[in-house]
């Protein structure tokens, strides 16, 4: 292994600039003649907009322009698109009510933007925004997921019952037969709590129009700038795509919330031409709480049918998913395609049926958040599996062993084909690392101290590497899901790589450089990774769904291989040998079986100084690009084991040990992978123990709109994690990689809740399992 090659713990190239304060984020970019925007947001969850009086605001110091929804609608601008069509069980399409970039007749959630004020300074913009007088007619709000479809009020006239779609997946009749003939059926009613993403860097945008070229530049904190441009140009503003450059510079965290095309940046681009000056907006923290797309928010009943040996015979899942006030970019596919297809988990359950009712509510839009559908699926599966073990009197590890899939490829009853995995190996390694055998003694020792100790399992699976475009298209995707990469070899043999993936914490600038350096046999410092700029990168679908390395990395590998193939031809010419006799290893082209060789840098120089060069049959230059469309999803999987100790007097839960054994396929940089696992675990533990987005069910007001009320996980809430890996290389990409970004957030919540319910002897406890909830559960049992 090269010291900086594949498999090495290379420290992150990008950290030098981040840790020294030299990162360049959207808000750091100030253009000449800069102006600033502030949005007027609805204080009501549901209200008609009767009138907007901007006269007083317009007269305030520094105000450049004020626009309302009517101003924008008058120019023929439609609304934001939804990127995925989901059909109802009866084949009719989902309801897609318009999502205006500034609300026109009605505001539909607290924070819905109804006007924008543009001024010379941010303070002036905010002061004038407060002076905009909006005459609202307050309407009853719909703010509860479970009861939205029965609410008297309608969020949209086009969906009077607030139902966006009712979607079914799997064989309902087979599942009903399995339930009818089961030895035992375990049932759980569970809620997957709503979360607010909370990236450290709030959303931000800076839009500029250049009159001389009639083109726009948009700097935006975003995970997929090409998709942002495509959606904005083709579906909303009607600006020619080649006239817009979207730059997503350093981005301080996304977790899914920066995948989407939002109203704010779209308004800025639209307004930048009218104002004729660049316009910048950066969300303040409360705006982020109110207007970032939220995550999760499912209400589910799950039933698991079993035979006398605890073998699963059928599973039925009925879910109500809250999509919020409008359909955000991928809102429709998260609780369906990315959810129900994962309900087999690691188990050979022969029949599975899932029905999902998506409901509109007067809350912020809900969309993909770290894991996106897969944490929700894993929570359902791993909670019911643990509950089934308890109902059957089986050890939670044993019931998993009895039901694991062991032969591959394996076609699940919910539409996926797992290419490879070794679920027993991960489980047994986790059992050993967690010292499961020693648990009874630790439990007894804790009891002697008056503490309740519990242990919980979670054997999760996820589908990553999104995705084969044709499969996604058949399932309703309105976009391709390939990735693009370009490898530009400079005359001196240094390399710039352009990737359509985007790094906002993942460490691509290091991992991708390791891959390229390893494959080309050159030092990692000779490789730079460029991303996040439609003006530089040929195309890209961006970063989400743990896809960057499996899809974006593969595109780069394909381009590198093209470089090597061309290099062989150049080397063959220089070495006066046949193309087929040239081999490339450790940065050197060599005539096989001889010591005749030429190094990579010499070949690169020859490509750009083609004096001695086969110009009659080969173009000069050494620059290759590649598109890669995966043939299957990748399937990271693993087992997490959580051990907790609960103080029965206060209900406070302490995580005493958390063990995660994951199979991510081959690992490029173990340090970065461990960091991704740690961060994912922190988010999953945050969901299970601390984070809960709460809307008042009557008024629709967001009650958790600051860090005083929304509990984020902090370092001292977390234990030292015990992490391990087991590797089964992915069978269908050249690196054999699967993806690691979301696993921690997917696997951990059920392990933690299984541990708490084990410790206190209850069937369920709502997330977040706050001290009071745990204390009350203990009281209810006593």
């Amino acid at each position, binding site marked *: 292994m090269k010291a900086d090659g594949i498999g090495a713990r290379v420290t992150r190239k990008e950290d030098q600039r981040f840790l020294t304060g030299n990162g360049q984020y959207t808000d750091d970019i100030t253009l000449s003649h800069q102006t600033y925007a502030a949005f007027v947001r609805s204080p009501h969850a549901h209200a008609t907009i009767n009138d907007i009086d901007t006269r007083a605001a317009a007269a305030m110091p520094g105000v450049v322009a004020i626009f309302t929804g009517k101003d924008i609608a008058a120019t023929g601008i439609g609304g934001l698109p939804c990127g995925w069509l989901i059909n109802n069980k009866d084949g009719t399409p989902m309801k897609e009510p318009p999502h205006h970039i500034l609300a026109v007749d009605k505001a539909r959630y607290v924070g819905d933007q109804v006007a924008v004020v543009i001024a010379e300074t941010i303070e002036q913009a905010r002061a004038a925004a407060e002076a905009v007088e909006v005459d609202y007619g307050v309407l009853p709000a719909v703010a509860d997921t479970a009861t939205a479809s029965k609410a008297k009020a309608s969020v949209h006239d086009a969906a009077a019952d607030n139902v966006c779609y009712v979607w079914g997946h799997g064989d309902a009749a087979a599942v009903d037969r399995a339930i009818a003939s089961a030895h035992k059926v375990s049932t759980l009613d569970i809620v997957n709590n709503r979360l607010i993403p909370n990236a450290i860097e709030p959303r931000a945008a800076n839009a500029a129009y250049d009159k001389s070229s009639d083109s726009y530049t948009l700097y935006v904190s975003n995970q997929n700038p090409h998709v942002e441009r495509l959606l904005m140009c083709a579906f909303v503003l009607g600006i020619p795509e080649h006239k817009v450059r979207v730059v997503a510079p350093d981005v301080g965290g996304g977790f899914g919330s920066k995948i989407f095309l939002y109203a704010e940046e779209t308004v800025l681009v639209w307004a930048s031409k009218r104002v004729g000056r660049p316009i910048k907006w950066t969300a303040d923290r409360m705006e982020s709480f109110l207007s970032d797309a939220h995550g999760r928010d499912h209400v589910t009943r799950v039933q698991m049918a079993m035979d006398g040996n605890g073998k699963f015979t059928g599973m039925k899942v009925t879910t109500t998913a809250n999509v919020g006030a409008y359909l955000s970019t991928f809102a429709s596919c998260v609780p369906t395609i990315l959810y129900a297809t994962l309900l087999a988990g690691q188990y050979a359950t022969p029949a599975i049926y899932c029905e999902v009712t998506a409901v509109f509510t007067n809350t912020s839009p809900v969309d993909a958040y770290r894991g996106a559908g897969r944490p929700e699926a894993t929570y359902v599966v791993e909670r019911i599996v643990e509950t089934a073990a308890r109902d059957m009197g089986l050890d939670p590890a044993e019931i998993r062993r009895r039901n694991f899939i062991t032969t591959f490829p394996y076609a699940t009853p919910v539409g996926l084909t797992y290419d490879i995995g070794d679920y027993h190996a991960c489980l047994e390694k986790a059992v050993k690392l967690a010292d499961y055998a020693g648990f009874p003694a630790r439990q007894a020792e804790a009891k002697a101290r008056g503490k309740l100790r519990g242990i919980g399992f979670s054997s999760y699976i996820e589908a990553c590497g999104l995705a084969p475009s044709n499969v996604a298209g058949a399932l309703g995707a309105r976009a391709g899901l390939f990735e693009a990469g370009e490898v530009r070899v400079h005359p001196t043999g240094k390399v710039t790589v352009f990737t359509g993936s985007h790094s906002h914490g993942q460490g691509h600038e290091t991992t991708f450089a390791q891959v390229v350096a390893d494959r080309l046999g050159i030092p990692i410092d000779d490789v730079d990774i460029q991303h996040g700029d439609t003006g530089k990168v040929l195309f890209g679908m961006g970063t989400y769904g743990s896809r960057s390395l499996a899809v974006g990395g593969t595109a780069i590998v394909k381009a590198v291989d093209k470089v090597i193939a061309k290099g062989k031809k150049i080397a063959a010419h220089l070495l006066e040998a046949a193309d087929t006799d040239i081999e490339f290893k450790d940065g050197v082209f060599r005539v096989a079986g001889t010591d005749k060789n030429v190094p990579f840098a010499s070949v690169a120089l020859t490509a750009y100084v083609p004096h001695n060069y086969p110009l009659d049959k080969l173009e000069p230059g050494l620059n290759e690009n590649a598109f890669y469309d995966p043939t299957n999803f990748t399937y990271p999987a693993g087992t997490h084991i959580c051990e907790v100790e609960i103080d029965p007097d206060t209900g406070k839960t302490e995580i005493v040990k958390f063990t995660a054994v994951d199979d991510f396929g081959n690992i490029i940089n173990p340090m970065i992978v461990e960091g991704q696992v740690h961060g994912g675990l922190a988010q999953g533990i945050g969901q299970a*123990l601390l984070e809960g987005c709460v809307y008042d069910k009557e008024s629709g007001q967001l009650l958790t709109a600051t860090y005083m*009320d929304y509990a984020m996980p902090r370092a001292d809430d977390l234990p030292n994690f015990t992490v391990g890996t087991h590797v089964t290389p992915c069978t269908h990409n050249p690196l054999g990689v699967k993806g690691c970004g979301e696993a921690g957030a997917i696997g951990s919540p059920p392990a933690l809740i299984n541990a708490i319910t084990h410790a206190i002897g209850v069937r369920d406890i709502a997330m977040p399992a706050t001290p009071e909830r745990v204390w009350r559960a203990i009281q209810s049992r006593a």
Partner: protein
Amino acid sequence: MQAFQLHQPNSVASATQQRAGKDDARFLAGGQSLLAAMRLGLNSASELIDLSKIPGLAGIKVDGNGIVIGAMTRHADVAASADVKRLIPALAALAGSIGDRQVRNMGTIGGSIANADPAADYPAAVLGLGATVQTNKRAIAADDFFKGFYETALAEDELITSVRFPVPTKGAYEKFKNPASRFALVGVFVAQTAGGVRVAVTGAAGSVFRVSAIEAALAGNWSAAAAKAVRVSADGLNSDLHASAEYRAHLITVLAARAVAAS
């Protein structure tokens, strides 16, 4: 944050003079509550009177059987004070548990008790130890100082100059933190003082308050069991997103018992 006028007086007299008669003026001590409120638009003071340039307002000194802490003394300095740690270790520990490092380096005792945040820590120590609040006008007994939700006995142009804490025989503070804000969901200060047993609770109601039932139980039997046996009524306690009144009432006894055990 809106623009404001900043005054930096160099005496208590000129500070109170600048404050007198102005509704929109506020004293600025450590700024850890006021400035955050202004940034959020929850407080629109147009004039701030910075107390940090007034000589003599900060400092800790032993005074007979008590410790006098200047109003502008930062939490970190109280937490680190050898005198406080020796004579009233519970007070040093309480100061060291406030907020985070940045807050403790800026926040002041005078600012904290004048603000009377219902979940602040210092009010529990002031009331639990039976301290005396010294202002530019008078000395106010702890029992007379806290009047309600963000309300104190201070007049508009009255400025705290110091707080005198009598050294107790025993004392301890136990806090159960709100998982989001890390303020006290409930905090309980217990002390054996010359004036008897005192039990003060913060975080649980609109203002810090004493629990006479636990005081009576502990007066007869200073033990965790005695404290834990008391059932505190949930009437009048806060019930919010983070905890019900019933749970807070339960925590009062649990924390009082733990404080006694730790004292």
